[in-house]
């Protein structure tokens, strides 16, 4: 019995597993798009990307994470392109030299949804800061994403603008995606901040309704960020650029505009006038 034999046997066994699956190294027919849960949960990406693939032969693998995590994934070099919605985090990403261009391709808005009985009496209000204050003052249950996503960042920013740092048992940080937050809000009769797209496509709205919409502070912009080839030489620039060009093209914009759910538009193309 010699130890080297055993070690070699184990090593050969492990390599025989790893080497064949690593053989298919870099191919430019597939790219990884780090994007947000709202674009996945709303069904937009699943609806429009097959059209891009049919036209260009480029397959897009969407890793849906919160905006914060999506930017981190790209920063680590594990994505070829980013599509997110947190202006402040995006600006920081650009300033750090990770991105080279930042292009708005769509927008919609955030809404506050809450239980039908509306314990904080939000329905009818138009000022989101007042609504947040009322929710906090009545200690009505509020679900926070708590996942550093674009929606989470907006919610935190609104609380800052109100001048409060929410806490206590009514404020429930679930650390999950948009769909999970809507599930939790439904289950707990709580308010939550949602993007309109995910709310419209969410399949389990019983007992919940939109209680506030239309404040200009609730506009929600989706940007594509192309990675900087100097800091990210590993990113597949050419196919990533084609996806950006397609999304920004008249055709891509029309596909985004045409995506509806039960006859309702979920996203506006970039050029649509903002309220």
């Amino acid at each position, binding site marked *: *019995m010699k*130890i080297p*034999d*055993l070690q070699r*046997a*184990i090593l050969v*066994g*492990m390599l*025989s*597993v*790893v080497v064949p*699956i*690593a053989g*298919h*190294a*870099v191919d430019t027919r597939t790219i*990884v798009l780090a994007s947000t849960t709202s674009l996945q*949960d709303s069904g937009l990406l*699943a609806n429009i990307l097959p059209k891009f693939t049919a036209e260009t032969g480029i397959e897009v*693998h*969407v*890793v*849906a994470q919160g905006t914060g995590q999506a930017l981190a994934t790209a920063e*680590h*070099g*594990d994505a070829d392109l980013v599509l997110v919605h947190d202006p402040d985090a995006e600006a920081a990403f650009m300033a750090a030299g990770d991105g080279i261009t930042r292009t708005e391709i769509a927008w919609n808005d955030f809404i506050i949804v809450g239980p039908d009985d509306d314990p904080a009496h939000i329905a009818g209000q138009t000022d989101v800061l007042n609504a947040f204050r009322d929710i906090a003052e009545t200690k009505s249950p509020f679900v926070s994403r708590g996942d550093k996503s674009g929606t989470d960042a907006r919610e935190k920013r609104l609380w800052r603008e109100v001048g409060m740092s929410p806490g206590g048992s009514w404020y429930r940080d679930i650390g*999950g*995606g948009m*769909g*999970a937050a*809507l*599930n939790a809000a439904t289950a707990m009769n709580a308010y939550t901040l949602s993007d309109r797209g995910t709310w419209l*496509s*969410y*399949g*389990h*709205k*019983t007992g919940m309704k939109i209680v506030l919409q239309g404040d200009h502070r609730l506009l929600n912009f989706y940007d594509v960020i192309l990675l900087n080839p100097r800091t990210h030489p*590993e990113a597949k620039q050419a196919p990533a650029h084609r996806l950006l060009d397609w999304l920004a093209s008249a055709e891509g914009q029309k596909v985004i505009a045409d995506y509806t759910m039960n006859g309702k538009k979920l996203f506006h193309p970039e050029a649509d006038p903002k309220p």
Partner: protein
Amino acid sequence: LSNVFDAGHRALELLFRFDPALLRIIALSLAVSFSAAAAASAVGLPLGAALAVARFRGRYLLIVLANAMFGLPPVVVGLGLYLLLSRFGPLGMLHILFTPAAMILAQFLLALPIVVAISHRTMSGVWREYGDALLVDGLGWLQAVPHVLAIGRLGALTAVLAGLGRSISEVGAILIVGGNIAGYTRTMTTAIALETSEGNFAFALALGGVLIVISIAVSIAAFQIEAGFRRVK
């Protein structure tokens, strides 16, 4: 409650209509988990048997290690593997993060200690009974390993099934290293997590039903084989 029945009803519909998205997810799950279990068996069975048969320095440590890793938390394995496979990580040049290969690797790592620990236990029994005879035949330990595995093949199969059961029901690791990409790295477990979060309970329930049936079938097979093994002995 009517919600639950409604979701159940639509789940059955999806299954019996052979919904293509559903079938693709099931097929990918099976492919990933069977590959992982097969790889874990290819490495783990000989290793488990060798640990039962051979006497060498570090042997006891390996046995303790295999048993200690038996219940390795999948999310932690996922995290560790993510850091290794990330393009800036030490294995980044493999370019397998967010691919099925990364998921197979994750489940391989989770299943391996189980296969090693279980096969070590059963093969130790075999070795106690037949070891002297095999040694009398003049075999070295390396040659004895295949014989021991052949004699204890039912025990080996139990180990393989336990590894498979671990792989197919796991969600934490593959969610992290696979990225849950639709049509590419989305398996039954990760799809259930996602569809539940989107409020699509019918789809989640249909997949849940299939997953339960598969995992029960694997467990029953393992139990029957083990029972048969006892009877033979």
